[in-house]
């Protein structure tokens, strides 16, 4: 089946779950990634049971800190 992952169309084996895709794509900090499929969030508790279908568009959203690294917050 064809999936669009982070904007790039790719071919994958049928029956792939979100959890398996995270593994295949070697997603950084997989425990803390936010996943959306066709613009809907998939909560991490549902990664293992959510099967992807042909044509799905998957995005991985990562935590990113920022400009001020010096104890702004106590």
């Amino acid at each position, binding site marked *: 089946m064809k999936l669009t992952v982070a904007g790039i169309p790719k071919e994958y084996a049928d029956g792939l779950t979100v959890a398996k895709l995270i593994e295949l794509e070697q997603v950084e900090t997989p425990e803390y990634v936010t996943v959306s499929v066709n613009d809907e969030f998939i909560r991490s508790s549902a990664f293992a049971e959510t099967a992807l279908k042909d044509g799905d568009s998957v995005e991985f*959203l990562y935590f990113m800190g920022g400009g001020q690294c010096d104890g702004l917050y106590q």
Partner: protein
Amino acid sequence: MAFTNEQLERYSRNIILSEVGVKGQKKLLNARVLIVGAGGLGAPAALYLAAAGVGTIGIADADEVDLSNLQRQIIHTTPDVGKAKVQSAKETMLAINPGITVNTYRTFVASDNVMELIADYDFILDGTDNFPAKFLINDACVLAGKPFSHAGIIRFRGQLMTYVPGRGPCYRCVFKEPPPPDAVPTCRQAGVIGAVAGVIGSLQALEAVKYIVGKGELLTGYLLTYDALKMEFRKIRVPLARDCAVCGEHPTILKPFDYEQAECDLK
């Protein structure tokens, strides 16, 4: 309010834009923006907002300028090392534009002062690094009905989204809760290129300007990601989370609260 000749000249490149004009420049001069963090993101944002003539800019930061800041925090200079960041930032902003007011808050942002800090401002710019602060600012802005710009940077990458009450998801819709302390690398541990902070902080300033003048499309409902190594921007649609704990259908967060801080940020 009529413009002085000096103002007309200073802001001529703004005023000549059909999207800004005299009306938009007046809105900018009457606007109040709070920048939380005078660091990598806050520095370029504060410079551009001051230069653009945002009339009142608040800047909150408890810290002092450190030599290791200067690689990216371009509002501070070498002689400022050791000075309070808010003071150093204020001096540079007023040197660029003496016609604005800069309010400084030399304080940590926490649940007991965040509502009071944001109350007087029209738009909040999150220039913090750590996730407890990011979630705190998000929750406070949602609860107070204030628009804000979220941004994050690490290594060669950055991200940005804009929250406007009633017009799209909040930061917590996308990132449900902070990762455990030290689970996700910070700039201190992983590094960041100064110009990446410049790109993303400048985009935050742009979102504030667009919000104030009421033109263009904001990053509401989108997370913009930037990868400087690939030189690639992506605008990713992000939906509202119906189960969001602060802006969802059944909110459980009814007042701001503090998460524990990562080791990294405690010097």
